[in-house]
């Protein structure tokens, strides 16, 4: 290898390491700042919101606290400043084990990434590197239908092809594969939104009389299913109508 190429690569590596070191310092600084502002608060098992000044035995982490801390849904009766737990208290350092445990962690990462950057997320939870594209795509803004249809059929990291008229129930009701897999019925959407929407179709909803969308759509026309699918994409922040 020519000498100048080697020197160039060394310089490039040094620059990358320096950038990473700066990022780590900024991250630590941001954490320290948030600590100083005393933004940690939790709800104890009795449902009382505790701030950092409480003289209890320490925070009792009840599921859901992270969600409303970072979502901005702060307790309205909380007198402390806004904020939430630190990234390392939100993101699991090791990949969670068990069905369904990864998805909430990835959603938390997507929610945090605009604040601390994807590098910040990966510094806390390196296992998420395998899901980087999935985390990034979750924050995509809603797009027009034509844009969602443009990349159908092309592999794209962090995205899946999604059927507007749900495939399983349409097949059960005898709609043809040609209709189900037609270009008009397919959109390319962020992978985690795809997961969320698929599960939504099998979850009971009050507005549908206590049945899931899949059950609700049974026996409905293609157009009714299509309209429902389009509304669902809009509700999940994928489609900009």
């Amino acid at each position: 290898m020519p000498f100048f190429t080697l020197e160039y690569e060394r310089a490039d590596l040094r620059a990358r390491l320096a950038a990473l070191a700066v990022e780590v310092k900024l991250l630590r600084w941001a954490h320290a700042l948030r600590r100083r502002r005393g933004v940690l608060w939790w709800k104890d098992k009795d449902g009382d919101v505790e701030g950092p000044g409480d003289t209890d035995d320490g925070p009792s982490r009840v599921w859901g606290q992270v969600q409303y801390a970072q979502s901005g849904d702060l307790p309205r009766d909380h007198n402390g400043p806004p904020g939430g737990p630190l990234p390392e208290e939100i993101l699991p350092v090791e990949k969670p084990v068990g069905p369904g445990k990864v998805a909430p962690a990835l959603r938390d990462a997507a929610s945090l990434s605009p604040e601390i950057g994807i590098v910040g997320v990966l510094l806390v939870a390196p296992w998420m590197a395998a899901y980087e594209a999935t985390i990034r795509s979750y924050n995509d803004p809603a797009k027009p239908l034509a844009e969602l249809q443009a990349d159908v059929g092309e592999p794209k990291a962090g995205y899946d092809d999604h059927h507007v008229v749900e495939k399983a129930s349409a097949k059960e009701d005898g709609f043809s594969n040609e209709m189900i897999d037609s270009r008009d019925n397919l959109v390319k959407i962020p992978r985690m939104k795809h997961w969320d929407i698929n599960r939504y179709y099998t979850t009971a909803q009050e507005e549908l009389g206590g049945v899931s969308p899949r059950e609700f759509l049974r026996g409905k026309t293609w157009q009714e299913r299509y309209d429902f699918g389009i509304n669902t994409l809009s509700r999940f922040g994928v489609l900009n109508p």
Partner: protein
Amino acid sequence: MTTARLASLSERALKGRFLDLAISQHRAVAELDSKRANEIYALMEQVSQELKARPGDQRRELIDLLSHPNAWVRFKAAVHTLGIAPVQARAVLEEVSNQTADPLCRAYARGSYDAVVAGTFPQK
């Protein structure tokens, strides 16, 4: 919990039960466990029906939860109080479906809110 056991609980305890179920359902939905979410859905219905059956329609106990810090709890409380506090419940549904930062919660609440606006939400 059986219906008979629910009947023995105070309104305050039923409200606590509803709150616990709402938080568990939020977790089930976040973990993509629709089977568990549906089981919890049925249990929440039982609690709501038990409160409704009591003299004076005690679902009013759930009105407190319309200001709970967890957006999913507010959303579920709103759905179950539409019949007794429609203006307040509708405002909460609108707030959750438009403003909360949790995209899952927003999406689910939006379905209910759209049905309320369209006048197709089933009477409870």
